[in-house]
């Protein structure tokens, strides 16, 4: 089994803990509880591996069993200082913003800078969470996609509450970490 470390980064209250809880336990809690420090969760999954050489661009490789160690990191500013020590050894990172709070999207470049300073080759996914709050959207999916495209990363609009696209996003990143 291949083990990989994934870190979730983003401002406080964007839904990082909720995304992990949805993916790992398929649960959601409406009450906001601030995370301090780090919570590591483990999730095993089987993904299609990278295509064997000569298998064609659209081909899929043999299924790969993976163990994801998902690091849910505090979004609060007081942990900025120690965040670098948390992300070391990460193979993947999820940059999360809240679609209803534009300033959380504006913070993402700084998280990316801090991340790549420690782990330059990390695979990234960009996530706009809280798509269920339809009437409060302050950010368009196009803006998210444009930003992700600059990083050559996938963009996902998710809802930890409904579960929309959460599993897809983690699986996409898991596959990307295999290549």
């Amino acid at each position, binding site marked *: 089994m291949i083990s990989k470390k994934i870190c979730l980064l983003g401002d*406080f209250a964007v839904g990082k803990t909720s995304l992990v809880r949805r993916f790992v336990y398929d649960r959601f809690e409406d009450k906001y509880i601030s995370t*301090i*420090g*780090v919570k590591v969760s483990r999730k095993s999954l089987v993904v299609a591996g990278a295509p064997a050489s000569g298998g064609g661009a659209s081909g899929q490789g043999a299924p790969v069993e993976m163990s994801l160690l998902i690091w849910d990191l505090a979004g609060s500013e007081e942990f900025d200082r*120690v965040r670098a020590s948390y992300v070391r050894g990460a193979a993947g990172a999820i940059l999360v913003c809240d679609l209803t709070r534009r300033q959380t999207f504006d913070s993402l470049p700084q998280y990316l800078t801090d991340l790549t300073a420690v782990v330059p080759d990390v695979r990234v996914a960009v996530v706009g969470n809280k798509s269920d709050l339809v009437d409060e959207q302050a950010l368009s999916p196009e803006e998210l996609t444009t930003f992700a495209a600059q990083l050559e990363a996938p963009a996902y609009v998710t809802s930890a509450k409904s579960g929309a696209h959460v599993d897809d996003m983690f699986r996409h990143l898991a596959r990307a970490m295999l290549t």
Partner: protein
Amino acid sequence: MNPEIVQPILSRKRIAYARVDAALCLRALGGDDTLLGLAPGDIGQPLVVVVPELFGSEAQLHAVMTGELPLITVPRVNRDGPDGDVCYLDLSVFPSRDDDAAALLVVAEDVTELARAEQMLTQQRNELALLRDRLAEQNMALAAANAELRQLDQLKSRFVTIAAHELRSPLATISGYVDLLFEEEICGPLSEMQRTSLDVINRSTARLLHMVGNLLDLTRIEAGRLDLTLQPVEISPLVHQVMRELKPLAEDKRHALEVTVADDLPLALCDGERALQVLHNLVANAIKYTPDGGHIAVVVCCDQEPTFIRFQVSDTGIGIPPEEQQRLFEAFFRAGNVYQVDARGSGLGLGIARSLVELHGGALWFESTPGQGSHFYFTLPVGEPD
């Protein structure tokens, strides 16, 4: 450090530790083994498998072992406690020796009590920040709505100004020709019926001109464009002019008019026309809103504040209901009991009067009891002594 000092300090802490060999596998456990959730069966397992918070730190672990790094730490590790609540650990990895070979010592300290306090603080700070952001958004929306309202208000003011100007010229022409017909009889002698009809036209035109004047004043006051010509003014002639003008109206309603102007009254520093307008408005209101056969009193004297002259207009009228007194100076507001005296009005005069007084640096206020009458007061500054 002296063990006699270290021992009491350590005895107060919940600590677990693990010895790790050069291959980064567990060799021994100690301390409170419930903290890291490790059991003797884990001996021999890779450290990063049984302590997942150290996964990814293999290079740093080797660096500690070789002395390149003094230690590594992972602060505030969240673990599920036995009671289902989160407990918090600070993880540290130090260099150590194992049978004279390089090794590591992993120490986990329970910092739950402190971390829970930190968590509560963080929670409150974050919730406050979320509220602040929401408030900022609402403020922005309100500011945008305000800007739109201001724009609409300016548009309304422009419209009122233009409309009032356009109305005033033809009204003045009508008024002039009615005067010629009425006073000069330029088209020959008038029959009683014609006189009555012209009188109706004349009164209606005067009322319209008065309303147009009020609208223009209101828009000028709102725009801060109403200018006063301040000069020393003798008050007594001004008061008597108002009383002369309004005497016919008072007589129509069989009111008793009483005027008292103090003998030693100094000159007022005011715009005579505007002072006259204010007093005229108050006395006209007193006449209008007092049932037939009432008593109207005008008193002018020095104010308790020696730099002001005080005017008082009292009536025995219908009064103003207490619940409506706050709104009395609002534009277009009329009290709910005006039907008792069938008085016409636009609800503009009082607000304009108060603004005019305040532009002079004075004040306008009232006391009123429904069914008994009202007392309106205003002050104007005393002119500079010669």
